[in-house]
Structure formats: structure tokens, C-alpha cells
């Protein structure tokens, strides 16, 4: 077979870009353009219809002194603990157990833990709203075991509402984290563990010496995914508390919705959205950097 030299088209330096172009156009139309428009809207005082007024960076300046926005940012950071850190710890333990143990019906347990990921968030929210209700199953359980003092309207109590919503996030995300880590752990060659056991390592030693270092990559991926989920959580808040009581559970993405569609302050809503985008981006760059460096 004789090979002919590549044609001029193939050799052209522009050709790769030509291949990217269709995807780029779609990406530009549905992601870049809206993003740029949102950035633009954030410079205006606008109700979403009618005339608009150019106000420069005033919307951003207002955010600095905006109590609701600061509360939202603070809550989002708390939610990262519930959405990302807690599921990571639980997911690691569960995955290690599943990896090691010869538990009967392991597939069943794995599916159950992953199940929340499959259910639509609205359904999850409605279910948990009932669980947390003043006369709901959680409080009935507490009363049944004599812990009457702990029973409360979980979503209406300013101290309990945010952790209560956060716990739903933990419950949601731990299945995903577990599955990711389990996939990572299954790639670890068995001889490594055998060698460790011959050297007299127990399960704890084994976990810290072999399992944990081997799944670093998966941990970074899990953290990136869950932190994004934490920062942009909206449906759970919207369905369970609408940001209440007071500002106790409001989050940036709920603020975007509230400002744009309830209060008709599209400029302010866009400013929040842009800040949120930058924040999500920055935190994830940071996580990825740290993850890569320590590898």
C-alpha cells in the first residue's frame, strides 16, 4: 500500500479549529453568550422589562453591604461542609468497608446508598419536608425514645434549619462519593493488600497506607463535584424553606432567583450570579491545584 502525503486541507493549521467550530458555536450560543449578557445586565438597574438605567458597578457595591447576600454566602460555605466534607468522610469509610468486607447483599446496600442520586431533587425535598415536619416521623421517633426535648419543627427553627437542609445534602451526595471512591479502590491491585497483611498491617493501617493514597484522584473529583453542588444548590432550598426562617437558609442561587423573579431586580440578580460563578470557579481551581500538587 502506498501512502500519499496529507492534502493541503489536512495540513492547514486552521483545520483543527474547523472541527471545533460546531461545538464551539453551540457552546458560545448557550453558555458564553448568556454569561456575557448576565455580566452586562449586572451593570444596569433593570426590572426585567421596560427601560433600564446604567449604574456601573453599583450593583456589586450594594452587595458588599447587603445582609441577605452575606448571609447567603455564609450559608453556602456551611453547606460545603455538609455537601462535600461529610459525604467524603462517610463515603471513604463506606467504600473501604465495601472494598474489604464480604458483606452479604453488598450490591443491595450499595444501591440503597446510591439511590438518592437517582431520585429527582424535588421529590427528595418533599419527602424530607415531611420527615422534618413538627408531627413528622423524625420527631415521633425522638418522642418515642424519650428525647422529647430534641423534637422541634426542624425547618422552622433558626438554629436547626441550615443543618437540617445540609443533612439532606449529605444524604444525597454520599452515595455518589462512595461510588466514585469504590471505583478507584477496585483498581488497586490485590497483591498490595496481601503484601501489607503479610507485613502485619491491620485494616486501619491498610486504609491509610494503601487505600487512601491510591484514590487521591477520585477524592479530588468527588470534592469538585460536591462543592459545585453545594454552592449552586437551589431546588432543595426552594422546596424546603424558601430561604427561611428569616435568612437562615438562603443561598446565593436562591438569591438570584428571588431577586430576578420575585423582586424584579434583574441587575442585582445578575451581579449575584456573576459573583457566584467566580466563586465556584475559584474554589474549584483551588481544590484541583491542591489535589494535583499532593499527587
Amino acid at each position, binding site marked *: 500500500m502506498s501512502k500519499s502525503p496529507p492534502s493541503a486541507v489536512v495540513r492547514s493549521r486552521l483545520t483543527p479549529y474547523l472541527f471545533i467550530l460546531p461545538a464551539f458555536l453551540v457552546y458560545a450560543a448557550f453558555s458564553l453568550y448568556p454569561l456575557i449578557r448576565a455580566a*452586562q445586565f449586572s451593570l444596569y438597574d433593570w426590572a426585567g422589562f421596560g427601560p433600564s438605567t446604567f449604574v456601573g458597578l453599583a450593583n456589586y457595591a450594594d452587595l458588599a453591604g447587603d445582609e441577605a447576600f452575606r448571609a447567603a454566602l455564609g450559608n453556602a460555605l456551611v453547606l460545603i461542609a455538609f455537601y462535600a466534607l461529610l459525604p467524603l468522610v462517610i463515603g471513604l469509610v463506606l467504600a473501604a468497608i465495601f472494598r474489604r468486607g464480604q458483606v452479604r447483599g453488598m450490591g443491595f446496600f450499595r444501591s440503597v446508598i446510591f439511590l438518592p442520586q437517582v431520585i429527582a431533587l424535588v421529590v427528595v425535598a418533599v419527602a424530607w419536608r415531611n420527615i422534618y415536619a413538627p408531627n413528622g416521623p423524625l420527631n415521633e421517633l425522638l418522642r418515642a425514645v424519650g428525647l422529647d426535648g430534641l423534637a422541634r419543627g426542624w425547618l*422552622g427553627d*433558626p438554629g436547626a434549619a441550615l443543618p437540617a437542609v445540609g443533612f439532606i445534602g449529605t444524604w444525597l451526595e454520599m452515595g455518589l462519593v462512595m461510588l466514585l471512591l469504590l471505583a478507584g479502590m477496585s483498581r488497586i491491585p490485590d497483591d498490595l493488600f496481601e503484601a501489607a497483611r503479610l507485613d502485619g498491617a491491620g485494616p486501619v493501617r491498610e486504609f491509610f497506607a494503601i487505600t487512601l493514597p491510591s484514590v487521591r484522584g477520585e477524592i479530588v473529583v468527588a470534592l469538585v463535584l460536591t462543592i459545585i453542588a453545594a454552592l449552586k444548590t437551589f431546588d432543595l432550598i426552594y422546596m424546603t424553606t424558601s430561604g427561611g426562617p428569616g435568612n437562615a437558609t438562603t443561598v446565593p442561587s436562591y438569591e438570584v432567583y428571588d431577586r430576578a423573579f420575585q423582586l424584579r431586580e434583574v441587575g442585582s440578580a445578575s451581579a449575584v450570579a456573576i459573583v457566584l460563578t467566580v466563586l465556584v470557579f475559584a474554589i474549584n481551581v483551588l481544590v484541583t491545584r491542591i489535589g494535583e500538587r499532593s499527587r
Partner: protein
Amino acid sequence: MTVHKPASASTMCHHGALRHSIAAVAARTQEDTMRRQSRRHFLGSSAAVGGVGLLAACAPGSDSGASDGGGSGPAASDVETDPAAMGEITLKVWDQEVRGAQNDAIESLVDAFEKAYPNITVDRVKQSFDDLQQQSGLALSGNDVPDVLQVNNARGDMGEFVKAGQLTDLTGYAEAYGWEDRFPTSVLSKARYSADGVTFGEGPLWGLPQTGEVCGIYYSAKKLKALGAKPPTTWDEVYALVEAAQEAGELPIKLGNLEQWPALHLFGPLQADFVTAETIVPLAMGNAGADWTSEENLAALTRLADWASSGALGDSPNGLAYDTAWAEYTEGSGVLLIGGSWLGPDMGAVMGEDLRFMAPPAGVDGTIATTGGTGLPFAIPAKAANADAAAAYIDHLTSDTAMELIAEAGGMPVLRTAELAPASGVNKDIYEAFDAVSNDGELLPYLDYATPTFADTAGAALQQVIGGESEPAAAAEELQTDYGDFTAEG
């Protein structure tokens, strides 16, 4: 703050220009230039990603609505009131009457209208309140507007649309059709704004409602009997009843306030026992001249706080969802439930004759005053293609026959409620209460009409008072800040 005049940008920006140029003959050629321009504009902006300076040149939104507001409307003498003479028309109608009874009523009204005027076809789009509310702003600023649109009375909705000149002033139609004779003044005032959108409750008419709503006191006849009590005729008797219920180990008032707004329907009626209707109306309509931090308002907020801290509202009203609360009430949890008339049919279906409803007792000024009002008014967008036919349709929706149809379907018509009241059941009580309040008493506006942000502010403030997280005085300050800032802007 630099004020940017968007008009200068209209040739640059295809968005503004598209909306701007409905006018007439030049449209086509202009469109061609615009298409070319918009392509160039797109290439330009994607080349300079992040070129904010360039972007700032294109103001969002349309510049067609004059900022001094006030869509105009025809004079009564220019109005065509005979739909048969209007030629072939497809009337586009957007409403939010999706629930059973209301939907049935509207459907038969549309059938009757089309039968009476075969030249008119009604193209009806119905969607939920939330969906319609969120789409209205976008729809009104486009060119392809519906002819009839249901618009929420609140300042954030109707007020903003009036200000932007996006609705038709119905004064001429009201005169031609005699709507002011048909409707009580207090009902019509809920759809009146001054043309600049600043004053609410007075000025031109921007919409006409079809149904009525009133917040009042639901009670269980059996539970009252067991407590040896009669339906209260004064507010003091209400307070005594609440205490008696508490002593008997019953939950006095059922409240589910997880969503923040339900407390407004409890506080509204209660407020009338401390504050005169004359003062509540400007507070609730966001008109200048009242003060949330007055002694009377403070007393009302304190009563709410006392109820909450004594447990009269249950252990955790803020943790209980609205729908769960009334469902639990039908199962026997709670002696009273203070809330809107719309709950009546559903609760009555479970509780039967045990469920009763009453308007709250006369307030501090001696009249029966309570939160209430109307269903969403039907309005005509300023750009509606068939305004005359739209007005005829609205007239038809609010006619005597329409009221009968709504009553038959189980809804509550805004007019003739006393005559149309059913013979028994909770709806009989509700009709009578609405009639008494709207004709002899004062229908107080919903408190969240006041300012575009008041639903949020008041919802959060009342929730915190009920939860014991803020003192009544602090809550009053918060409410006053929102109300004061808004009225000061003018």
C-alpha cells in the same frame, strides 16, 4: 451614578431595536439592515469576549415604554362595545385559573362567548399563578402580547407594568360598560394606580377581577361546643376563646408558616383590632402617610408575639408547611384556623358541616375590616391588537351570568355573593362573610402589595416574631424601613 440614555443605542442593539420598530412600513427594510447589523454585532462581541465597554453600549430592555409611565386608553365614546361588529378576530387570553372550579367556570364562559359572537375565536392559555407571574414581565415587553392578561395587583407586578406604560387604561371601557356601577368601590380600588404607578388604590383602572377572596376565621362547630363557647362576636371573645382552648388542652390556632407568607393572612385580620382601616390601607398599598412603628401597630405585633410564645399557635408553626397545616386541621388538630376563603371548599369536603367560617369581629374603628380582595384582575396590555374585543370579553367574564356560573362551579364570584350563596356548607358562610366585608366593611389589601420587596420583608419579619427571634419593636422597625424607603422614593 451615570444615567444612560438607552435611546441612543437603538441602532446598535438589535434587541432594543426589534422591540422599538413595530411602526409601519419601514419595518421590512429596517429588519434587513438589522439582521445584517446583528450578525456583525454578534461577531464583534464574540471577538471581544469580556469587552464590557462595548457591551455596556447595549442597554437591556426596551426603550419604547416611556419612563414617566401610563399607557393610555380610549375614551368611552371611541369604544366599540358590540363584538359582532368587530370582524374576524382571534382573541389571545392568558389566565391562571387552572384549579377545578375556576377552570370549569371560565371554560363555559368562553364557550358562551364564542357562541354569541361566532366572528371571535378565543385562544386561551392557562398556567399556574407562579408561571404566569414570571412570564408576564417578559411577555409584556415583547411585541406579540396577549389581548387579555391576568395581572397580580401587587406593586411588583401591576404597579411596575403601569409605570412602564405596558397596560391599557380601562377608564373609557369602564364608562362604556358601566363597570363602576357594577362593582363596589373598595373592590375596584385594588386595581387602580395613578398613571405614574406611584399611588396605589386611586387613579385610572387597569384591570377587572372576576372572583373574590377574604381572610377570616375558620372554626370547628363541634370543638366550640365542647368548650362551651359560641362563635366570637368581638375580638376580646376571640382572645378569651384562645385562652379557654389552651386551658382545655386543645391547640387554639392552627398555623403552618414554613413558607413565610401564611402569617400575613393571620396578622392581617388581627391588625384590624388595633389599627384603623384608614391607616392599614396606605400601609398595605405602599402609599405615604402611615407608620409601622406606631403604638397601634406595635400592639398588634405584640399580640402576635404573645400568641406565639404562649404556644397558642402550636409548638413550631414556622416548621409546619401551609398545606400540611390545613390538612391536619381537618383531622381535628386546632380549634381555629385564620386564613383565606380559598381553603373552604377543600377543608369542607373533609369536615362537612363541622367546618364553619366567619369574618373577623369588628375592628378598632367599629367596622368589619379584614385582609381580602379579589382574584387576579384581567387586564389589557397596551400593545394588545384587539383591545375592544378584549374589553368585551372581560365584560362578559364579569357579567351577572358569569357570577352565577362561578358560584355553580363552586368558586366565589366577586359580585352578588349574598344572593348566590349556597344553602348550606362552609361556602354559605364564606359568601356571606365576603358580602358583609366588601359591601358594609372594608376589604383590607394584602400587606405584601405594599412595595416590590414587602412580601420578603414582611414574611421574614413576621416569621421571626413568631419564632421569638426578634422583638415586635425590631420587626416594626424592619417593616418601616422597607415601607419608608419605598414611599420616600415616590
